[in-house]
């Protein structure tokens, strides 16, 4: 068992929070994302405040500020991944290249469907309905 503290914040608090954490020398563990039970996007900024993990959630926003200036690649890689897999855009993030998806999927920029659609629907859409 590990300690996990959840806090809900607004999107205007993301940058000041990141600056404070960076000043205190905290590590950004990861930026996670998922679609919650109400169909809203839930993005969480997880910081290591040893021995616990402090998780700051922003729910229901589709445009967020990038914290790449503060945490460099520790933040930009997760942001690029979320941008590809979920319908979320990060202001100030360079998205001219693909991180995981093929380069020819650039037109789906910020409208990613991979993690949003249920697996069954995704298979039906891409492989035709003829899949068990």
């Amino acid at each position, binding site marked *: 068992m590990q300690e996990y503290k*959840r806090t809900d914040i607004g999107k205007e608090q993301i940058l000041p929070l990141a600056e404070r954490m960076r000043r205190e020398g905290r590590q950004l563990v990861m930026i996670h994302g998922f679609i919650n039970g109400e169909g809203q996007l839930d993005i969480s900024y*997880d910081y290591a405040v040893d021995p616990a993990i402090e998780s700051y959630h922003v729910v229901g926003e589709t445009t967020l500020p990038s914290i790449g200036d503060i945490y460099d*690649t520790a933040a930009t890689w997760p942001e690029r991944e979320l941008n590809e897999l979920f319908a979320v855009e990060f202001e100030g993030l360079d998205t001219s290249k693909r991180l*995981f998806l093929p380069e020819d999927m650039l037109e789906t920029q910020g409208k990613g469907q991979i993690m949003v659609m249920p697996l069954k629907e995704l298979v039906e859409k891409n492989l035709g309905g003829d899949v068990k």
Partner: protein
Amino acid sequence: MSYIVPIGPYHPALEEPIHAKLYTEGEVIKDAEVFVGYNHRGIEKLATERNAIQTLVLVERVCGICSHSHAFTYAMCVETINGLEVPKRGEYIRVITAELERLHSHFLWLGIACHIIGHDSLFMHIWDERELVMDLLEKMTGNRVNYAMVTVGGARRDISDELRKEILSAGDKLKSVLDRIAEIATTDKTIALRTKGVGVLTREDALRMGAVGPHARASGVDIDVRRDAPYSSYGDFKFKVPVVDSGDVYARVLVRVLECYESIEIIRQALEMLPEGPINLGNKLPKIKEGQAVCRHEAPRGQLSHMVVGDGGFNNHRVSIHVPSYKNTPTVPHMLRGNTVADAGLIIASIDPCFSCLDR
């Protein structure tokens, strides 16, 4: 003359699928870029359609080297969401497996590093000794990789008294083997010439880019999840966290050799203090409560994190896996700058990369 030199995704100097573009000026690399995503298997997506026990099997297949770490971390996530207390003996067995895994992973990397340097006799020697660890793992778990030692709520197999004594005596042998390897690695001229001052990552850069694990510790960043946030039964053991300041490939070799000693020490303590009692909470298929958890584990390559969201039924709502290479790979272009093309393969390999893990 300036050239763009492409390396990979399939290249003799790399064991893993990564594509690196080197912008060179003569022999010297001026700038570099890395491209990942060649082995994306959609494991996170598949996990959303599976229950906890099926997911354990699935996440073990994320990585062939640190498979136990993934199962361990996923199980911890489910236990955190459900508020399960794992029996002490189960926790100890998990830790013993994790540390044996670290040993074989570090031996593997040391061997590969020697192979890339061109010191093939040491490569063969190290891989020969690695078999000792692999044999122990096979005896303990029944498998050479994908050990399947973890279940939600404990461990799946017990350690018998015979095996306990055998691992203890093997630990002493491993220590003398390590002494020999450390002696060669620190005194050999070839290794020193190829690794000292090569691929330097300064402490400031390591902190800024969020490097983790032995890679960060070789740059003087003193982090280790096992000590900073003791999970499982790591709080019960005494061990040191080796930190080296120079930040070059040589430092990464040193850190990993020193870490092997600490792993042997942890295994010895765990086996000597192995508590009596049950190893798990039974074989019932667990429900995953509504809720969310992020758990970290110090995998052989660094901090591994899993996020699990439960929906109240048997299946996961979301599983998100982020491996140490995710944090360490972005530092590669930074390290390549100013080095020669001949060292590129070694520098890329020096982070102990696992790009198949990274892609998931």
